[in-house]
């Protein structure tokens, strides 16, 4: 009996062992040995705080690239260092992450559902698809607070969660339970690389900003006296707050909700104030950068787009080199925008700060002549950003255009920027109505000329910014509206003497929505002049892309700009990216800066993941339901005005900067005017006549 028992059990065991042995051979699955190694150095508590099912799951997540070396939320630096060593990472490159609350708008919107006893964010979201007016915002029931194992989150007085950065371990527990994505675990690189999405808490100003700056956040930081924090917020999206604070036509202010009550908040003035604050302090704030990864990227063009791309590439750990054809960096900021709007010393200080991060520069090197895409590849550059701007001028295509004394506005402004003789006469006619035309006219005034601006539509249709138009008017620039040049008349020596123009009248609207000017037959007149500057549009000079055989591997659009994917800015050559005026045609400086960041993001993705990509939920247009104009319960508060540094008489003979910064008191006033808008919420607690409370504003100026 005993023998039979032993034999039976042995037989069953042997059969099972043989079957399993065969199965282990046939069904073998390779498992990365690093998983076991990583698991052995983790804390071993299986607490689940990291968001993975135990330490084995966390180790698997690290090896799969789903988690970083700091995956263990209770292990501290020692564990992170050991995990980094196994994964072949430099421990110093382990980025500090923290829970970030995106919904910080004004008073919570009204509840629109009757709750049924279940007071939990996930329940509300599941049962009612959201219980508040805002479809994306915080529901305010604090599920994240109970989910946080480290006591790092508390519900703030305004009904949204507030994170204590000292206690937050970035474990992700709050992020997992939040049904609205209000809380995100973010580090510096993630914030730099994030593109606005429709589910973000985007106040109208944020939606409209081409640079995607988190405007409500930096205004709120300024209101608390945290100027350094405000600059950090701005520099997550653009590298040049000093320049933008001076030259941006601030489209954000056009959609500001306060504009429906009185006047929009002086968003750009606040930005300029904090940027000036840093420059005047004489000390640069530290800008965090990822450690250098040794990978080189060529940035062709040292204008706003190129500088922005290089800045963000450097912050993401790359080693960018800027190739510039002119003697100095800055592009149109230096050679197109006059000194009185953007002093060169300010621009130099700002560019110096960007280069100080570790960006190499090669000047006076012309793309297509001194170097090519092939030579850059041979020199070890793994990707290229093309941002050579739009420097080629459109021509009038009228008789006498090649007369002596006829020049383009950009050529003139470049000469002024370089400080060389312009050859300007006493009586100048500027043809055009854009910002470049105004800059040309106002610079001419400062060189002692009597200036007449000729524009073929009316003042209302002028593309130039209204403040610039009025500024030129104050400086005695004369306007000739509804007038188009017919021909340019020159004397025997070929020098211009007159411009013959014809009167126009407005007809039906054209493709741009503006009414098309139509000539009035027989209304020709002459205007006497000795210099004519034309400024009717620019386009990129793309001949540099073609080889000696006339072949080009890149694509040109029908607007004569470089073709690229509109979201990733990747061109027909996978490792070549573009941005700025070269891609969009002449546009705003802030647009170029924004494209520079987008391109840096795409280059990073291309070099690390092989393919640049964007979320399917990218915000492209203004979100309609956020554009309401009825803003009740907000008191009237007068907007501050930028003070003039010099008076009008002096303005006409000097290139000194015209506009100065706001005073501290005025900035305090402006930040109090901000409604701290979200998608549908805004701060409505200001009633008519109520003064802004000092404790709400700057405490530590």
């Amino acid at each position, binding site marked *: 009996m005993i023998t*039979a028992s032993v034999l039976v059990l042995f037989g069953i065991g042997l059969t099972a062992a043989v079957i399993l042995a065969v199965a282990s051979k046939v069904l073998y699955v390779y498992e990365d040995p690093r998983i076991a190694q990583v698991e052995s150095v983790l804390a071993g508590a299986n607490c689940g705080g990291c968001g993975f099912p135990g330490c084995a799951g966390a180790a698997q997540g690290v090896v799969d690239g789903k988690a970083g070396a700091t995956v263990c939320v209770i292990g501290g630096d020692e564990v992170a260092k050991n995990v980094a060593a196994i994964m072949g990472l430099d421990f110093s490159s382990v980025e500090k992450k923290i829970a970030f609350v995106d919904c910080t708008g004004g008073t919570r919107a009204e509840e629109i559902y009757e709750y049924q006893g279940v007071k939990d964010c996930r329940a509300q979201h599941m049962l009612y698809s959201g219980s508040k007016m805002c479809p994306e915002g915080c529901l305010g029931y604090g599920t994240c607070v109970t989910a946080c194992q480290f006591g790092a989150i508390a519900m703030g007085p305004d009904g949204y969660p507030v994170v204590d950065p000292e206690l937050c371990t970035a474990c992700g527990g709050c992020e997992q339970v939040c049904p609205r994505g209000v809380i995100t675990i973010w580090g510096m690189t993630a914030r730099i690389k994030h593109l606005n999405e429709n589910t973000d808490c985007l106040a109208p100003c944020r939606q409209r900003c081409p640079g995607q700056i988190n405007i409500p956040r930096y205004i709120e930081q300024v209101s608390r006296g945290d100027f350094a924090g405000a600059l950090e917020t701005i520099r997550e999206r653009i590298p040049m707050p000093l320049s933008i604070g001076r030259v941006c036509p601030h489209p954000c202010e056009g959609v500001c909700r306060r504009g429906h009550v009185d006047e929009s908040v002086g968003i750009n003035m606040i930005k300029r104030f904090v940027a000036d604050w840093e420059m005047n302090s004489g000390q640069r704030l530290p800008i965090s950068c990822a450690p250098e990864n040794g990978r080189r990227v060529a940035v062709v063009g040292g204008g706003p787009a190129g500088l922005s791309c290089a800045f963000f590439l450097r912050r993401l750990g790359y080693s960018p080199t800027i190739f510039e054809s002119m003697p100095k960096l800055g592009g149109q900021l230096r050679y197109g925008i006059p000194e009185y709007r953007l002093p060169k010393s300010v621009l130099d200080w700002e560019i110096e700060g960007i280069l100080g991060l570790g960006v190499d520069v090669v000047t006076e090197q012309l793309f297509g002549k001194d170097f090519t895409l092939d030579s850059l590849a041979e020199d070890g550059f793994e990707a290229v950003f093309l941002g050579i701007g739009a420097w080629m001028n459109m021509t009038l295509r009228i008789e006498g255009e090649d007369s002596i004394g006829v020049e383009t506005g950009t050529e003139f402004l470049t000469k002024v920027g370089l400080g060389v003789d312009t050859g300007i006469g006493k009586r100048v006619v500027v043809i055009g109505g854009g910002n470049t035309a105004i800059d040309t006219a106002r610079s001419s005034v400062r060189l002692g000329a009597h200036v007449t601006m000729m524009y073929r539509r009316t003042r209302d249709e002028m593309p130039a910014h209204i403040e610039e138009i009025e500024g030129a008017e104050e400086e005695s620039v004369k306007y000739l509206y509804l007038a188009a040049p017919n021909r340019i008349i020159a004397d025997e020596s070929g020098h211009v003497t007159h411009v013959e123009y014809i009167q126009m009248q407005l007809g039906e609207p054209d493709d741009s929505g503006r009414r098309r000017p139509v000539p009035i037959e027989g209304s020709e007149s002459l205007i006497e002049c000795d210099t004519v500057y034309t400024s009717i549009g620019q386009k990129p000079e793309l001949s540099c892309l073609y080889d000696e055989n006339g072949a080009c591997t890149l694509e040109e659009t029908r607007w004569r700009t470089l073709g690229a994917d509109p979201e990733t800015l990747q061109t027909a050559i996978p490792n070549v990216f573009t941005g700025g005026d070269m891609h969009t045609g002449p546009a705003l400086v802030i647009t170029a800066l924004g494209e520079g960041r987008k391109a840096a993001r795409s280059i990073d993705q291309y070099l690390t993941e092989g393919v640049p990509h964007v979320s399917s939920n990218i915000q492209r247009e203004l979100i309609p339901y956020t554009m309401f104009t009825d803003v009740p319960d907000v008191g009237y508060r007068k907007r501050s005005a930028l003070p003039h540094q010099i008076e009008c008489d002096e303005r006409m003979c000097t290139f000194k900067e015209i506009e100065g910064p706001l005073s501290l008191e005025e900035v305090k006033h402006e930040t109090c005017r901000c409604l701290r808008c979200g998608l549908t919420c805004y701060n409505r607690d200001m009633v008519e006549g109520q003064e802004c409370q000092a404790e709400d504003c700057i405490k530590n100026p």
Partner: protein
Amino acid sequence: MDYFVLIIAAIFVNNIVLAQYLGNCPFIGTSKESSVAIGMGLAVVFVATMAACITWCVQQFMLAPNDLDYLQTIAFILVIAALVQFVEMFLKKVIPPLYKSLGIFLPLITTNCAVLGIAIICQREEFSFIETLVFSMASGFGFMLALVVLASIRERLDLARVPVSMKGTPLGLIMAGLMSLAFFAFKGMAS
């Protein structure tokens, strides 16, 4: 008709977990999410059916002829353990997502008394091979039904504010008890 009664009895009247109180550990452990509960339930159906069929063969062709019935429990555990190991290897190779979602609970089937219980009940009731196949599969589905129902209730309870001391397993056990009472209503419908 007999097979239909057998199925109804296995699933509702003599539910392996709610009426026979077998397999409570994985029942509470894997009933937090419906998706995991479905995966675990299917794994139990598969393993229980396979185990019952193989152990039926072991009993009929090895133990009974040699009068070794007293080895039934140890021999069945050996067979089930090997079978679960095999299933684990198979899922890891062929259905990795299901393998990952089951995680630690797949090895738990090795010591799942529900599976062993089904195999032993089949012998005690002296089922034929076909009856063993039908009963074990139905019992597995009974386990799966209880698991999925409890998981659904617990997902809903997860959103409610309950006293901290009652959260998780305590509330799960209470709900299991209430479900068990509810299933007692089937008593007497079939045996």
